[in-house]
């Protein structure tokens, strides 16, 4: 019996030790990506960053972790700065697979004061968004898109000193890093459509997941457009002033799939799920190019499938406006294809 208990005790101790040990190994093995100052203003950081990956992100931030996993997420580095004079400052650096993924996280909210934190010149390209904003500050929180980094630097209580420290940390995070252009896909959204419809640039969102789409524009709790990490998508409202002074909005969504066949299947699923009353006569999936318009409860819906690209417009006041918006988007994508993406 003694032997049995010894073995059992050894087994239990091993099971307790190995996970914590391997977690430490994993943290050590993940190379830290940023070098932040030990001291900044009144604040001093702990010696080691906390490393979070997809395996423990929910322990760190509960359901908020789904947001980062919805993009290409490699790992997160967390640096905590404390001071005996002021509340703490937290610097979170999300290391994403691509610059586009990091851009997507920033694009979920264009609110705040644009600030300059980069020392390197931007990639020479015509900007997609009006101003190529890369960092936004508000209420003590600085959000940064810097190449494949997305960072949140937050003072738990905003003061003059904490703002200065937060901005300095932002500069340290972005130091010497490249400044790639915004995702090419944003260019499918014309700034204006016809004389009336104007793009709400402050509501452009770039994403790869239906969860993120639903936080920007609720479509369905299920993934009816087959979005995943191989797809990229952009959505934004367009607005126009009506004669009575009111503002009318429509929502544009453009999804680029990896392959035309995936786009066709996704459209077929979307049509079946979202437009169940319009099934008759539709045999989607036969051609890779088609355009249709439907009147539903909240206005006119139009979609156009063109190869791997799928454009959808929601809540249009009439068929003509839906046709006009879809035409502008598809004209642009077709012309880009003819020019080989230039």
């Amino acid at each position, binding site marked *: 019996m003694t032997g049995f208990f010894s073995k059992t005790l050894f087994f239990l101790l091993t099971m307790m030790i190995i996970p914590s040990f391997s977690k430490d190994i994993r943290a050590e093995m993940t190379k830290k990506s940023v070098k932040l100052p030990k001291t900044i203003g009144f604040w001093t950081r702990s010696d080691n960053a906390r490393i979070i990956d997809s395996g423990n992100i*929910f322990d760190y*931030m*509960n*359901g*908020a972790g*789904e*947001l980062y996993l919805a993009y290409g997420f490699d790992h997160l580095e967390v640096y905590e700065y404390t001071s005996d004079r002021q509340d703490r400052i937290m610097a979170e650096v999300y290391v994403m697979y691509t610059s586009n993924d990091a851009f997507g996280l920033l694009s979920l*909210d264009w*609110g*705040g004061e644009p600030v300059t934190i980069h020392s390197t010149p931007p990639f020479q390209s015509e900007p997609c968004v009006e101003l190529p904003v890369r960092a936004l500050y*508000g*209420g*003590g*929180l600085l959000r940064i898109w810097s190449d494949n980094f997305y960072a*949140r630097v*937050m003072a738990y*209580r*905003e003061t003059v000193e904490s703002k200065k420290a937060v901005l300095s940390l932002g500069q340290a995070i972005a130091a010497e890093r490249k400044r790639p252009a915004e995702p090419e896909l944003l260019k499918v959204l014309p700034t204006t459509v016809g004389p009336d419809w104007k793009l709400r640039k402050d509501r452009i969102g770039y994403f790869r997941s239906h*969860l993120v789409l*639903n*936080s*920007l*524009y*609720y479509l*369905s*709790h*299920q993934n*009816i457009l087959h979005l995943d990490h191989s797809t990229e998508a952009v959505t934004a*409202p367009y607005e126009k002033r009506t004669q009575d002074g*009111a*503002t*009318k*909005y429509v*929502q544009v969504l453009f999804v680029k799939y990896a392959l035309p066949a995936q786009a066709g299947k996704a459209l077929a699923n979307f049509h079946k*799920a*979202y437009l*169940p009353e319009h099934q008759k006569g539709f045999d989607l999936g036969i051609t890779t190019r088609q355009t249709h318009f439907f009147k539903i*409860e*909240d206005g006119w819906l139009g979609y156009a499938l063109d190869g791997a690209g799928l454009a959808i417009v929601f*809540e249009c006041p009439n068929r003509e406006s839906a046709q006009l918006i879809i035409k502008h988007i598809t004209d642009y994508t077709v012309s880009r294809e003819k020019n080989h993406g230039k």
Partner: protein
Amino acid sequence: MANRQRGLTRRDFIRGTVGATLAVSALRMPWSEGSERLAPLSLVTVVRDKNVMDAGYRVDPKILQSMVNRTLLQVTGKNRVKEAWADLVKTEDIVGLVPTPHLNPTHQELVDVVKESLMREAGISEKNIIMAQGGKRRPGKCTALISMPALKGHWLTGIGTVIKNYIMYSGRPSNYHEEKSAKLGEIWLIPEVKDKTRLVLVDAIHPLCDKGPQPDPRYKWAYNGLIAGIDPVAVETVCLKILTSKRQALRGEPWPISPPPICVEAADKVYGLGTSKIEKIKIAHFGWGEDLLLE
């Protein structure tokens, strides 16, 4: 943005889980009578004090104590705090306090005030008051629960306050993401939890109206309130109204909560936990009235 609150359309009922979950209510299952089973009006109290939190976000325990007292009296209709607690718990109860643990957590000062009041006014011994957030074994030990979530929006479920506060009792929180968030109400019916919640007391001192659960100071504001009732769905519905009004005030245009918080309607119509119909809720406000967000 005008006219853009989609809500649940008939298409949601056609599609899979959400439809299947909510459509049950249309069948009027005997266990899903929902709000119709309750009294005509569910009472939700909103008690506010402008000075409960200072500019440095420090909470004044004395002011908070008087807000809790006011809440208890109004929720129960009693004249003394002792009588109010007696209406909610028995002296022999093992009371579990269930605050939001982290990411915009419930203020510790509120937990302390409630615990102290339970000991002093309700006669509950300290050993019989336990922190019950976590696995379902904790509420299993309790004979009464006081749910004490902090008010916040949630990017996956729309709102992450009352109905979601018991998610850890499921043992499988990730099973309640996406469309499955409609089923959050079922956790209130597991044996360890069912019929134990005596009071829902929402910490709305410094709520978060967007981007939750991660804190974003741009969307936090000093509401300086406590929202309470015994009907969890009614309390959540009032919380939703406050969040929605705050979002619109911030942007100057309608800014609907997205995705829509389907767990609230399901908690009413499928799980029968209370009412999600604002017209069936009597809101009783006391104290500071500025920016009440309930008009």
